[in-house]
């Protein structure tokens, strides 16, 4: 799997930033619009898998090591659980939304009813969205990358 033709490579390189921006938008607006960490992370990982398919697993493995992806995934998990434990420390309950209605970041309380939505609201939920998004991106891309690389090394694809 040393990559596909030049047309596929060019088109996927053009489409890649738009897919990334869309996925990051879904993650960042998880507390305002439909979507969230899991869904946006799946979109970003799909864009990375598109690059993997068009450029080949050997080239991609030279750019991104799966050890770095596991470090990223563990970072997401630690941030997620750490936010929950901070809720336990500051408010006494695991997973407590301690930033909501405080004087720190993400503290604006929205008006009840259907509103446009404020990005700087919802307490710990945006932080957890980012953590879960990082985790899903790194995890799914690590799975796809390792499987594709192993298939190439076993002789499943064209060298």
């Amino acid at each position, binding site marked *: 799997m040393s990559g596909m033709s030049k047309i596929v490579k060019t088109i996927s390189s053009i489409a890649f930033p738009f897919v990334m921006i869309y996925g990051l938008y879904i993650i960042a607006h*998880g*507390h*305002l*619009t*439909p979507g*969230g960490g*899991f869904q946006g992370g799946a979109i970003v990982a799909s864009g990375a898998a598109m690059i993997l398919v068009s450029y080949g697993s050997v080239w991609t493995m030279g750019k991104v090591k*799966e050890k770095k992806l*596991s470090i990223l*995934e563990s970072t997401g*998990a630690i941030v*997620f*659980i750490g936010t*929950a434990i901070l809720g336990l420390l500051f408010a006494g309950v*695991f*997973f407590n*939304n301690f930033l*909501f*209605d405080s004087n720190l970041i*993400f503290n*604006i*309380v*929205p008006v*009840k*009813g259907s*509103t446009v*939505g404020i990005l700087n*609201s*919802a*307490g*710990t*939920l945006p932080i*957890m*969205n980012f953590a*879960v998004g990082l*985790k*899903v991106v790194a*995890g799914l891309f*690590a*799975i796809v990358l*390792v*499987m594709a*690389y*192993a298939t190439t*090394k*076993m002789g499943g694809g064209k060298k």
Partner: protein
Amino acid sequence: MSKRNFAAVIFFTIVAVFLFFTALMMHPFGIFDEDNQPEMDDHIIDNSQTETGANNAVTGVVFDYRGFDTLGEATVLFTAVAGVILVFRRLKK
């Protein structure tokens, strides 16, 4: 029939009977029952904005009301990634 198979059949029968009677006692599908309504969905629709601050009620449920469920999902994903990398580790050269 060995003793082990006999115990398995007994256990399976007990589980099947429980499942059957639970299915019989289930809420009827599509029929509105005035005094047998769950209150959880109304509470979440009414109060999720003022209690969690999130305009998206689904995110409010997933990350605030049901945070432990998301923790379990994250653990499942972590286990899956760890297993795949462990299985394909020897092929990497």
